[in-house]
Protein backbone atom coordinates (compact mmCIF):
# COMPACT_ATOMS: atom_id res chain seq x y z
CA UNK A 1 0.00 0.00 0.00
CA UNK A 2 2.78 2.35 0.95
CA UNK A 3 4.58 1.28 -2.20
CA UNK A 4 1.52 2.06 -4.27
CA UNK A 5 1.18 5.48 -2.71
CA UNK A 6 4.87 6.10 -3.38
CA UNK A 7 4.45 5.10 -7.00
CA UNK A 8 1.40 7.30 -7.48
CA UNK A 9 3.19 10.13 -5.67
CA UNK A 10 6.08 9.82 -8.08
CA UNK A 11 3.76 10.43 -11.02
CA UNK A 12 2.19 13.63 -9.70
CA UNK A 13 5.02 15.98 -10.71
CA UNK A 14 5.05 14.46 -14.21
CA UNK A 15 1.30 14.92 -14.54
CA UNK A 16 1.63 18.54 -13.43
CA UNK A 17 4.41 18.98 -15.97
CA UNK A 18 2.30 17.62 -18.84
CA UNK A 19 -0.62 19.85 -17.86
CA UNK A 20 1.72 22.83 -17.73
CA UNK A 21 3.07 22.00 -21.18
CA UNK A 22 -0.50 21.90 -22.52
CA UNK A 23 -1.72 25.15 -20.95
CA UNK A 24 1.43 27.30 -21.21
CA UNK A 25 0.88 28.37 -24.86
CA UNK A 26 -2.51 29.80 -23.81
CA UNK A 27 -0.93 31.89 -21.09
CA UNK A 28 1.89 33.44 -23.07
CA UNK A 29 3.39 33.78 -26.54
CA UNK A 30 4.56 30.48 -28.13
CA UNK A 31 8.15 31.79 -28.30
CA UNK A 32 8.24 32.46 -24.57
CA UNK A 33 6.57 29.14 -23.82
CA UNK A 34 9.16 27.36 -25.97
CA UNK A 35 12.03 29.20 -24.32
CA UNK A 36 10.78 27.99 -20.92
CA UNK A 37 11.34 24.33 -21.86
CA UNK A 38 14.66 25.05 -23.56
CA UNK A 39 15.97 26.56 -20.35
CA UNK A 40 14.34 23.84 -18.30
CA UNK A 41 16.58 21.33 -20.12
CA UNK A 42 19.61 23.52 -19.42
CA UNK A 43 18.71 23.96 -15.74
CA UNK A 44 18.15 20.21 -15.27
CA UNK A 45 21.54 19.51 -16.87
CA UNK A 46 23.15 22.11 -14.63
CA UNK A 47 21.53 20.68 -11.51
CA UNK A 48 23.00 17.25 -12.21
CA UNK A 49 26.25 18.98 -11.27
CA UNK A 50 25.09 21.38 -8.55
CA UNK A 51 22.27 19.56 -6.81
CA UNK A 52 23.43 15.97 -7.25
CA UNK A 53 27.21 16.08 -7.45
CA UNK A 54 27.83 19.26 -5.46
CA UNK A 55 29.76 20.97 -8.28
CA UNK A 56 28.93 24.61 -9.00
CA UNK A 57 29.72 25.07 -12.69
CA UNK A 58 29.79 28.75 -13.53
CA UNK A 59 30.39 28.02 -17.19
CA UNK A 60 27.33 26.16 -18.38
CA UNK A 61 26.94 28.63 -21.27
CA UNK A 62 30.12 27.18 -22.76
CA UNK A 63 28.27 23.96 -23.55
CA UNK A 64 24.95 25.66 -24.31
CA UNK A 65 26.72 27.93 -26.81
CA UNK A 66 28.79 25.11 -28.26
CA UNK A 67 25.60 23.19 -28.97
CA UNK A 68 23.84 26.25 -30.40
CA UNK A 69 26.67 27.08 -32.83
CA UNK A 70 27.25 23.44 -33.80
CA UNK A 71 23.59 22.92 -34.66
CA UNK A 72 23.31 26.36 -36.27
CA UNK A 73 26.29 25.84 -38.58
CA UNK A 74 25.18 22.33 -39.54
CA UNK A 75 21.65 23.49 -40.29
CA UNK A 76 22.79 26.50 -42.32
CA UNK A 77 25.56 24.89 -44.35
CA UNK A 78 24.61 21.21 -44.48
CA UNK A 79 20.82 21.42 -44.14
CA UNK A 80 20.94 18.40 -41.84
CA UNK A 81 17.93 16.68 -40.26
CA UNK A 82 16.85 18.58 -37.11
CA UNK A 83 17.34 15.49 -34.97
CA UNK A 84 20.84 15.05 -36.42
CA UNK A 85 21.53 18.67 -35.50
CA UNK A 86 20.39 17.99 -31.93
CA UNK A 87 22.54 14.87 -31.72
CA UNK A 88 25.57 16.74 -33.06
CA UNK A 89 24.98 19.56 -30.57
CA UNK A 90 24.79 17.09 -27.68
CA UNK A 91 27.94 15.37 -28.91
CA UNK A 92 29.80 18.67 -29.26
CA UNK A 93 28.61 19.86 -25.83
CA UNK A 94 29.70 16.56 -24.31
CA UNK A 95 33.12 16.67 -25.99
CA UNK A 96 33.86 20.22 -24.90
CA UNK A 97 32.64 19.33 -21.40
CA UNK A 98 34.96 16.30 -21.40
CA UNK A 99 37.99 18.49 -22.05
CA UNK A 100 37.01 21.36 -19.76
CA UNK A 101 35.74 19.01 -17.08
CA UNK A 102 38.97 17.02 -17.15
CA UNK A 103 40.93 20.20 -16.44
CA UNK A 104 38.54 21.81 -13.93
CA UNK A 105 37.92 18.72 -11.79
CA UNK A 106 41.58 18.67 -10.80
CA UNK A 107 40.69 21.61 -8.56
CA UNK A 108 37.96 21.87 -5.96
CA UNK A 109 35.74 24.53 -4.39
CA UNK A 110 36.30 28.11 -5.43
CA UNK A 111 39.11 27.19 -7.82
CA UNK A 112 36.85 24.78 -9.64
CA UNK A 113 34.18 27.47 -10.00
CA UNK A 114 36.65 30.07 -11.25
CA UNK A 115 38.13 27.62 -13.77
CA UNK A 116 34.72 26.87 -15.28
CA UNK A 117 34.15 30.63 -15.46
CA UNK A 118 37.55 31.26 -17.08
CA UNK A 119 36.92 28.63 -19.75
CA UNK A 120 33.54 30.23 -20.40
CA UNK A 121 35.21 33.59 -21.06
CA UNK A 122 37.76 31.91 -23.34
CA UNK A 123 35.02 30.19 -25.32
CA UNK A 124 33.22 33.51 -25.66
CA UNK A 125 36.29 35.26 -27.05
CA UNK A 126 36.97 32.45 -29.50
CA UNK A 127 33.44 32.83 -30.89
CA UNK A 128 33.82 36.62 -30.81
CA UNK A 129 37.08 36.53 -32.79
CA UNK A 130 36.07 33.87 -35.30
CA UNK A 131 33.44 36.18 -36.74
CA UNK A 132 33.83 34.86 -40.30
CA UNK A 133 32.41 31.54 -39.10
CA UNK A 134 30.27 32.51 -36.13
CA UNK A 135 29.12 35.99 -37.09
CA UNK A 136 30.92 37.35 -34.05
CA UNK A 137 29.02 39.81 -31.93
CA UNK A 138 26.10 39.96 -34.39
CA UNK A 139 25.36 36.29 -33.91
CA UNK A 140 24.82 33.56 -36.48
CA UNK A 141 21.66 34.38 -38.48
CA UNK A 142 19.58 32.29 -40.83
CA UNK A 143 19.27 29.08 -38.86
CA UNK A 144 16.52 27.12 -40.65
CA UNK A 145 13.99 24.80 -39.08
CA UNK A 146 13.65 21.98 -41.61
CA UNK A 147 10.82 19.46 -41.26
CA UNK A 148 11.35 16.48 -38.99
CA UNK A 149 11.35 13.57 -41.42
CA UNK A 150 10.55 10.34 -39.61
CA UNK A 151 10.21 8.06 -42.70
CA UNK A 152 6.52 7.27 -42.10
CA UNK A 153 5.53 10.86 -41.48
CA UNK A 154 6.99 14.30 -41.86
CA UNK A 155 6.52 16.82 -39.08
CA UNK A 156 6.59 20.45 -40.18
CA UNK A 157 7.92 22.45 -37.22
CA UNK A 158 8.08 25.85 -38.89
CA UNK A 159 5.07 27.30 -37.10
CA UNK A 160 5.53 28.59 -33.56
CA UNK A 161 3.12 26.15 -31.98
CA UNK A 162 4.49 23.13 -33.88
CA UNK A 163 7.98 23.95 -32.73
CA UNK A 164 6.66 24.42 -29.21
CA UNK A 165 5.34 20.87 -29.23
CA UNK A 166 8.59 19.58 -30.71
CA UNK A 167 10.64 21.27 -27.94
CA UNK A 168 8.19 20.12 -25.24
CA UNK A 169 8.58 16.56 -26.43
CA UNK A 170 12.38 16.79 -26.46
CA UNK A 171 12.25 18.39 -23.01
CA UNK A 172 10.14 15.55 -21.62
CA UNK A 173 12.50 12.95 -23.09
CA UNK A 174 15.51 14.77 -21.60
CA UNK A 175 13.82 15.06 -18.21
CA UNK A 176 12.98 11.36 -18.17
CA UNK A 177 16.53 10.46 -19.20
CA UNK A 178 18.07 12.68 -16.52
CA UNK A 179 15.66 11.32 -13.91
CA UNK A 180 16.81 7.81 -14.84
CA UNK A 181 20.41 8.93 -14.40
CA UNK A 182 19.93 10.44 -10.94
CA UNK A 183 17.84 7.47 -9.75
CA UNK A 184 20.43 4.96 -10.97
CA UNK A 185 23.28 3.55 -8.83
CA UNK A 186 25.51 5.98 -10.72
CA UNK A 187 23.31 8.86 -9.51
CA UNK A 188 23.50 7.63 -5.93
CA UNK A 189 27.29 7.60 -6.12
CA UNK A 190 27.18 11.21 -7.36
CA UNK A 191 25.10 12.09 -4.31
CA UNK A 192 27.58 10.29 -2.09
CA UNK A 193 30.34 12.42 -3.60
CA UNK A 194 28.29 15.53 -2.88
CA UNK A 195 27.71 14.43 0.70
CA UNK A 196 31.23 13.31 1.52
CA UNK A 197 33.79 12.92 -1.23
CA UNK A 198 36.59 11.62 1.00
CA UNK A 199 34.36 8.84 2.27
CA UNK A 200 33.25 7.91 -1.22
CA UNK A 201 36.92 7.57 -2.21
CA UNK A 202 37.59 5.43 0.87
CA UNK A 203 34.86 3.08 -0.37
CA UNK A 204 36.76 2.57 -3.61
CA UNK A 205 35.04 5.03 -5.94
CA UNK A 206 37.26 6.95 -8.31
CA UNK A 207 35.44 10.15 -7.47
CA UNK A 208 37.25 12.27 -10.07
CA UNK A 209 36.12 9.86 -12.82
CA UNK A 210 32.52 10.01 -11.60
CA UNK A 211 32.63 13.80 -11.59
CA UNK A 212 34.06 13.83 -15.11
CA UNK A 213 31.26 11.59 -16.38
CA UNK A 214 28.65 13.80 -14.67
CA UNK A 215 30.26 16.80 -16.34
CA UNK A 216 30.08 15.17 -19.77
CA UNK A 217 26.41 14.20 -19.33
CA UNK A 218 25.61 17.73 -18.16
CA UNK A 219 27.53 19.23 -21.09
CA UNK A 220 25.73 17.03 -23.61
CA UNK A 221 22.25 18.01 -22.39
CA UNK A 222 23.31 21.66 -22.21
CA UNK A 223 24.50 21.48 -25.82
CA UNK A 224 21.20 19.96 -26.86
CA UNK A 225 19.36 22.81 -25.14
CA UNK A 226 21.55 25.27 -27.04
CA UNK A 227 20.56 23.73 -30.37
CA UNK A 228 16.86 24.06 -29.48
CA UNK A 229 17.48 27.71 -28.62
CA UNK A 230 19.16 28.53 -31.95
CA UNK A 231 16.35 26.85 -33.90
CA UNK A 232 13.76 28.77 -31.88
CA UNK A 233 14.89 32.23 -32.93
CA UNK A 234 16.44 31.36 -36.30
CA UNK A 235 19.64 32.94 -35.06
CA UNK A 236 22.38 31.98 -32.62
CA UNK A 237 23.04 35.15 -30.64
CA UNK A 238 26.47 35.43 -29.05
CA UNK A 239 24.66 35.66 -25.70
CA UNK A 240 24.25 31.88 -25.83
CA UNK A 241 27.92 31.50 -24.94
CA UNK A 242 28.20 34.64 -22.78
CA UNK A 243 28.85 34.24 -19.05
CA UNK A 244 25.60 36.02 -18.15
CA UNK A 245 23.75 32.98 -19.48
CA UNK A 246 25.83 30.81 -17.12
CA UNK A 247 24.80 33.11 -14.28
CA UNK A 248 21.13 33.00 -15.25
CA UNK A 249 21.14 29.20 -15.05
CA UNK A 250 22.60 29.39 -11.56
CA UNK A 251 19.87 31.88 -10.63
CA UNK A 252 16.96 29.91 -11.97
CA UNK A 253 18.18 26.66 -10.46
CA UNK A 254 18.74 28.14 -6.99
CA UNK A 255 15.38 29.91 -7.08
CA UNK A 256 13.63 26.72 -8.13
CA UNK A 257 15.52 24.54 -5.67
CA UNK A 258 18.54 22.28 -6.06
CA UNK A 259 17.46 19.60 -3.62
CA UNK A 260 14.58 18.38 -5.74
CA UNK A 261 14.79 16.97 -9.25
CA UNK A 262 11.93 19.21 -10.40
CA UNK A 263 13.16 22.37 -8.69
CA UNK A 264 15.20 23.67 -11.65
CA UNK A 265 12.17 23.29 -13.94
CA UNK A 266 10.10 25.47 -11.61
CA UNK A 267 12.97 27.98 -11.57
CA UNK A 268 13.19 28.04 -15.36
CA UNK A 269 9.44 28.60 -15.71
CA UNK A 270 9.56 31.48 -13.24
CA UNK A 271 12.73 33.09 -14.58
CA UNK A 272 11.83 33.01 -18.28
CA UNK A 273 8.28 34.13 -17.62
CA UNK A 274 9.62 37.07 -15.63
CA UNK A 275 12.32 37.88 -18.17
CA UNK A 276 10.04 37.75 -21.17
CA UNK A 277 6.77 39.19 -19.89
CA UNK A 278 7.67 41.66 -17.18
CA UNK A 279 10.64 42.98 -19.13
CA UNK A 280 8.27 44.19 -21.84
CA UNK A 281 6.45 46.41 -19.37
CA UNK A 282 9.26 47.28 -16.99
CA UNK A 283 12.88 47.26 -18.07
CA UNK A 284 14.21 47.01 -14.52
CA UNK A 285 12.82 43.47 -14.17
CA UNK A 286 16.14 42.03 -12.95
CA UNK A 287 15.38 43.91 -9.74
CA UNK A 288 12.48 41.53 -9.12
CA UNK A 289 14.73 38.55 -9.79
CA UNK A 290 17.22 39.95 -7.30
CA UNK A 291 14.57 40.50 -4.62
CA UNK A 292 13.11 37.02 -5.10
CA UNK A 293 16.60 35.58 -4.96
CA UNK A 294 17.39 37.32 -1.68
CA UNK A 295 14.05 36.21 -0.25
CA UNK A 296 14.64 32.62 -1.28
CA UNK A 297 18.16 32.54 0.15
CA UNK A 298 16.98 33.96 3.47
CA UNK A 299 13.80 32.01 4.00
CA UNK A 300 13.62 29.07 1.65
CA UNK A 301 17.08 27.68 1.09
CA UNK A 302 15.52 24.78 -0.78
CA UNK A 303 13.97 27.15 -3.33
CA UNK A 304 10.35 27.24 -4.50
CA UNK A 305 10.13 23.51 -4.12
CA UNK A 306 10.67 23.86 -0.40
CA UNK A 307 7.59 26.07 -0.16
CA UNK A 308 5.62 23.12 -1.46
CA UNK A 309 7.30 20.67 0.92
CA UNK A 310 6.64 22.94 3.91
CA UNK A 311 3.02 23.44 2.96
CA UNK A 312 2.65 19.70 2.50
CA UNK A 313 4.31 19.04 5.87
CA UNK A 314 1.96 21.50 7.57
CA UNK A 315 -1.03 19.87 5.92
CA UNK A 316 0.16 16.42 6.99
CA UNK A 317 0.61 17.56 10.57
CA UNK A 318 -2.86 19.14 10.62
CA UNK A 319 -4.48 15.96 9.36
CA UNK A 320 -2.26 13.71 11.54
CA UNK A 321 -1.43 11.52 8.60
CA UNK A 322 2.16 12.57 8.20
CA UNK A 323 5.27 10.41 8.21
CA UNK A 324 6.23 9.16 11.67
CA UNK A 325 8.91 11.30 13.25
CA UNK A 326 12.15 9.31 13.28
CA UNK A 327 14.25 11.31 15.70
CA UNK A 328 15.13 9.23 18.72
CA UNK A 329 18.32 11.06 19.56
CA UNK A 330 19.98 10.15 22.79
CA UNK A 331 22.36 13.08 22.65
Amino acid sequence: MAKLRQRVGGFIPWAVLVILILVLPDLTRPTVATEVWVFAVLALAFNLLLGYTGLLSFGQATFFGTGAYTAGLLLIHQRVHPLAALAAAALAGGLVAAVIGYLCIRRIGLYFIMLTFAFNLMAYFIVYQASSITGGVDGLPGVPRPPVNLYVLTWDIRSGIAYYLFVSLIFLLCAIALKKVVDSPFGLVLQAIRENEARAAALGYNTAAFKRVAFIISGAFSGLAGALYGMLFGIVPIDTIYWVTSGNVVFMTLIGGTTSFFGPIVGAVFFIWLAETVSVRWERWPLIVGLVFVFVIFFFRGGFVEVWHRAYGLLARLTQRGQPKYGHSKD
Partner: protein
Amino acid sequence: MVILRTENLTVRFGALTAVDRVNLEVQAGTVHSVIGPNGAGKTTLFNSIAGEVRPVSGRVFFLDRDITHLTVYQRAQLGIGRSFQRTNIFPNLTVFENVWLAAFARVRPSSLPAPVPRHRLSELKDRVYEVLGEVGLADRAGYRAAELSHGDQRLLEVAIALGLSPKVLMLDEPTAGLSPEETRLMMGVIKQLGRRYTILLIEHKIHLVMEVSETISVMHFGRIIAQGPPEEIRKNPAVQEAYLGRR
Protein backbone atom coordinates in the same frame (compact mmCIF):
# COMPACT_ATOMS: atom_id res chain seq x y z
CA MET B 1 49.72 -15.60 7.00
CA VAL B 2 50.61 -11.94 7.09
CA ILE B 3 47.90 -9.99 5.28
CA LEU B 4 49.09 -6.44 5.93
CA ARG B 5 52.62 -5.30 6.62
CA THR B 6 54.47 -2.01 6.93
CA GLU B 7 58.21 -1.72 6.50
CA ASN B 8 60.04 1.17 8.21
CA LEU B 9 57.02 3.37 7.54
CA THR B 10 57.77 7.01 8.35
CA VAL B 11 55.43 10.01 8.11
CA ARG B 12 56.49 13.55 8.84
CA PHE B 13 54.46 16.74 9.15
CA GLY B 14 57.08 19.48 8.91
CA ALA B 15 59.49 18.93 11.78
CA LEU B 16 57.17 16.47 13.52
CA THR B 17 57.77 12.80 12.88
CA ALA B 18 54.29 11.44 13.48
CA VAL B 19 55.12 7.87 12.49
CA ASP B 20 58.70 6.77 13.01
CA ARG B 21 60.05 3.67 11.22
CA VAL B 22 57.07 1.51 12.06
CA ASN B 23 57.13 -2.20 11.27
CA LEU B 24 53.72 -3.71 11.70
CA GLU B 25 52.52 -7.17 10.73
CA VAL B 26 48.86 -8.07 10.79
CA GLN B 27 48.08 -11.81 10.72
CA ALA B 28 45.06 -12.84 8.69
CA GLY B 29 42.05 -13.82 10.79
CA THR B 30 43.13 -11.98 13.93
CA VAL B 31 42.11 -8.85 15.76
CA HIS B 32 45.20 -6.69 15.98
CA SER B 33 44.96 -3.54 18.08
CA VAL B 34 47.17 -0.49 17.99
CA ILE B 35 46.99 1.38 21.26
CA GLY B 36 48.77 4.38 22.64
CA PRO B 37 48.19 7.72 24.31
CA ASN B 38 46.61 10.61 22.40
CA GLY B 39 49.01 11.99 19.83
CA ALA B 40 51.04 8.80 19.62
CA GLY B 41 50.58 8.67 15.84
CA LYS B 42 47.98 5.91 15.65
CA THR B 43 45.61 7.66 13.30
CA THR B 44 48.47 8.87 11.10
CA LEU B 45 49.74 5.31 10.84
CA PHE B 46 46.23 4.28 9.94
CA ASN B 47 45.84 6.99 7.33
CA SER B 48 49.14 6.10 5.71
CA ILE B 49 48.05 2.47 5.44
CA ALA B 50 44.71 3.55 3.92
CA GLY B 51 46.49 5.92 1.53
CA GLU B 52 45.25 9.28 2.77
CA VAL B 53 48.66 10.32 4.05
CA ARG B 54 51.84 9.82 2.04
CA PRO B 55 54.82 8.42 3.93
CA VAL B 56 58.22 10.06 3.44
CA SER B 57 59.87 6.65 3.51
CA GLY B 58 59.05 3.02 4.09
CA ARG B 59 56.55 0.78 2.35
CA VAL B 60 53.15 -0.78 2.83
CA PHE B 61 52.38 -4.32 1.67
CA PHE B 62 48.95 -5.83 1.32
CA LEU B 63 48.86 -9.57 0.53
CA ASP B 64 52.54 -9.28 -0.44
CA ARG B 65 51.79 -6.56 -2.94
CA ASP B 66 53.50 -3.18 -2.54
CA ILE B 67 50.64 -0.68 -2.25
CA THR B 68 52.70 2.30 -1.05
CA HIS B 69 51.93 4.29 -4.18
CA LEU B 70 48.29 3.36 -4.71
CA THR B 71 45.49 5.89 -4.18
CA VAL B 72 42.82 5.63 -1.49
CA TYR B 73 40.21 4.23 -3.83
CA GLN B 74 42.61 1.69 -5.36
CA ARG B 75 43.46 0.34 -1.90
CA ALA B 76 39.76 0.15 -1.07
CA GLN B 77 39.18 -1.84 -4.25
CA LEU B 78 41.88 -4.32 -3.18
CA GLY B 79 39.93 -4.99 0.03
CA ILE B 80 41.05 -2.52 2.66
CA GLY B 81 37.93 -1.20 4.36
CA ARG B 82 38.16 1.45 7.02
CA SER B 83 36.09 3.44 9.46
CA PHE B 84 36.96 6.90 10.70
CA GLN B 85 37.57 8.32 14.13
CA ARG B 86 35.35 11.28 13.49
CA THR B 87 32.05 10.05 12.14
CA ASN B 88 32.32 10.11 8.39
CA ILE B 89 29.05 9.11 6.79
CA PHE B 90 26.70 10.37 4.08
CA PRO B 91 24.36 12.41 6.32
CA ASN B 92 21.53 13.14 3.87
CA LEU B 93 21.31 9.62 2.50
CA THR B 94 19.44 6.83 4.25
CA VAL B 95 21.17 4.26 6.43
CA PHE B 96 20.38 1.68 3.74
CA GLU B 97 21.94 3.85 1.02
CA ASN B 98 25.05 4.48 3.12
CA VAL B 99 25.80 0.77 3.36
CA TRP B 100 24.52 0.06 -0.15
CA LEU B 101 27.13 2.42 -1.57
CA ALA B 102 29.83 0.41 0.16
CA ALA B 103 28.48 -2.92 -1.08
CA PHE B 104 28.11 -1.53 -4.61
CA ALA B 105 31.67 -0.22 -4.55
CA ARG B 106 32.89 -3.78 -3.98
CA VAL B 107 30.88 -5.12 -6.89
CA ARG B 108 31.43 -2.54 -9.59
CA PRO B 109 33.31 0.65 -8.93
CA SER B 110 33.34 1.73 -12.59
CA SER B 111 32.26 5.31 -13.25
CA LEU B 112 30.12 4.48 -16.27
CA PRO B 113 26.37 4.88 -15.71
CA ALA B 114 25.53 1.44 -17.09
CA PRO B 115 22.44 -0.31 -15.73
CA VAL B 116 22.94 -2.93 -13.03
CA PRO B 117 21.28 -6.33 -13.59
CA ARG B 118 18.25 -7.03 -11.44
CA HIS B 119 19.67 -10.12 -9.73
CA ARG B 120 22.76 -8.12 -8.80
CA LEU B 121 20.57 -5.48 -7.18
CA SER B 122 18.75 -8.04 -5.08
CA GLU B 123 22.06 -9.61 -4.02
CA LEU B 124 23.27 -6.18 -2.97
CA LYS B 125 20.09 -5.58 -1.02
CA ASP B 126 20.53 -8.87 0.84
CA ARG B 127 24.14 -8.01 1.60
CA VAL B 128 23.15 -4.60 2.99
CA TYR B 129 20.56 -6.11 5.33
CA GLU B 130 23.04 -8.78 6.40
CA VAL B 131 25.56 -6.08 7.36
CA LEU B 132 22.94 -3.93 9.07
CA GLY B 133 21.93 -7.03 11.04
CA GLU B 134 25.54 -7.63 12.10
CA VAL B 135 25.76 -4.20 13.73
CA GLY B 136 22.14 -4.14 14.90
CA LEU B 137 20.84 -1.34 12.67
CA ALA B 138 18.45 -3.34 10.47
CA ASP B 139 15.39 -1.61 11.92
CA ARG B 140 16.84 1.81 11.11
CA ALA B 141 17.45 1.15 7.40
CA GLY B 142 15.02 3.82 6.20
CA TYR B 143 16.25 6.63 8.43
CA ARG B 144 18.36 9.47 7.15
CA ALA B 145 21.84 8.92 8.56
CA ALA B 146 21.85 12.40 10.09
CA GLU B 147 18.81 11.45 12.19
CA LEU B 148 20.61 8.66 14.03
CA SER B 149 21.99 9.08 17.55
CA HIS B 150 25.74 9.42 17.88
CA GLY B 151 26.07 5.82 19.03
CA ASP B 152 24.11 4.54 16.05
CA GLN B 153 26.15 6.72 13.69
CA ARG B 154 29.30 5.06 15.04
CA LEU B 155 27.73 1.67 14.32
CA LEU B 156 26.80 2.88 10.83
CA GLU B 157 30.41 3.94 10.38
CA VAL B 158 31.46 0.35 11.05
CA ALA B 159 28.64 -0.99 8.87
CA ILE B 160 29.84 1.07 5.89
CA ALA B 161 33.32 -0.42 6.25
CA LEU B 162 31.75 -3.90 6.52
CA GLY B 163 29.63 -3.31 3.44
CA LEU B 164 32.84 -3.44 1.43
CA SER B 165 33.32 -7.09 2.51
CA PRO B 166 36.91 -6.10 3.24
CA LYS B 167 39.84 -8.48 3.56
CA VAL B 168 41.09 -6.20 6.32
CA LEU B 169 38.70 -4.13 8.39
CA MET B 170 40.44 -1.07 9.84
CA LEU B 171 38.55 0.58 12.69
CA ASP B 172 39.78 3.94 13.97
CA GLU B 173 38.60 4.42 17.56
CA PRO B 174 35.09 3.13 17.02
CA THR B 175 34.20 3.98 20.62
CA ALA B 176 35.17 7.65 20.33
CA GLY B 177 32.60 9.80 22.11
CA LEU B 178 30.38 6.90 23.15
CA SER B 179 28.69 6.51 26.53
CA PRO B 180 29.82 3.53 28.67
CA GLU B 181 26.72 1.63 27.66
CA GLU B 182 27.22 2.33 23.94
CA THR B 183 30.90 1.42 24.29
CA ARG B 184 29.95 -1.99 25.68
CA LEU B 185 27.58 -2.50 22.76
CA MET B 186 30.27 -1.50 20.25
CA MET B 187 32.91 -3.77 21.76
CA GLY B 188 30.40 -6.62 21.68
CA VAL B 189 29.86 -6.00 17.96
CA ILE B 190 33.61 -5.89 17.32
CA LYS B 191 34.11 -9.14 19.22
CA GLN B 192 31.48 -10.79 17.02
CA LEU B 193 33.07 -9.38 13.86
CA GLY B 194 36.50 -10.60 14.99
CA ARG B 195 35.37 -14.15 14.35
CA ARG B 196 34.88 -13.50 10.65
CA TYR B 197 37.14 -10.59 9.73
CA THR B 198 40.74 -9.59 10.05
CA ILE B 199 40.55 -6.42 12.11
CA LEU B 200 43.10 -3.71 12.68
CA LEU B 201 41.74 -1.69 15.58
CA ILE B 202 42.90 1.63 16.98
CA GLU B 203 41.97 2.48 20.54
CA HIS B 204 43.42 4.63 23.23
CA LYS B 205 41.53 3.04 26.07
CA ILE B 206 43.81 0.10 26.84
CA HIS B 207 41.33 -1.90 28.91
CA LEU B 208 38.85 -2.14 26.03
CA VAL B 209 41.15 -4.00 23.67
CA MET B 210 42.52 -6.55 26.16
CA GLU B 211 39.55 -8.83 25.76
CA VAL B 212 39.03 -8.69 22.00
CA SER B 213 42.59 -8.65 20.61
CA GLU B 214 44.95 -11.47 19.71
CA THR B 215 47.85 -9.06 19.25
CA ILE B 216 48.47 -5.58 20.60
CA SER B 217 50.98 -3.03 19.34
CA VAL B 218 51.70 -0.08 21.59
CA MET B 219 52.65 3.23 20.01
CA HIS B 220 54.35 6.09 21.77
CA PHE B 221 55.77 9.22 20.12
CA GLY B 222 55.38 7.68 16.67
CA ARG B 223 57.18 4.44 17.49
CA ILE B 224 56.03 0.99 18.34
CA ILE B 225 57.42 0.37 21.80
CA ALA B 226 55.91 -3.03 22.45
CA GLN B 227 54.08 -5.76 20.62
CA GLY B 228 52.58 -9.06 21.68
CA PRO B 229 49.57 -10.84 23.14
CA PRO B 230 47.47 -8.91 25.70
CA GLU B 231 48.96 -10.61 28.83
CA GLU B 232 52.48 -9.67 27.80
CA ILE B 233 51.50 -6.09 27.04
CA ARG B 234 49.80 -5.74 30.40
CA LYS B 235 53.01 -6.71 32.18
CA ASN B 236 55.40 -4.75 29.94
CA PRO B 237 57.18 -2.03 31.96
CA ALA B 238 57.65 0.33 28.98
CA VAL B 239 53.90 0.22 28.35
CA GLN B 240 53.14 0.84 31.99
CA GLU B 241 55.38 3.86 31.90
CA ALA B 242 53.85 5.26 28.71
CA TYR B 243 50.35 4.77 29.99
CA LEU B 244 50.31 4.58 33.71
CA GLY B 245 53.31 6.79 34.37
CA ARG B 246 51.23 9.74 33.28
CA ARG B 247 48.43 9.16 35.70
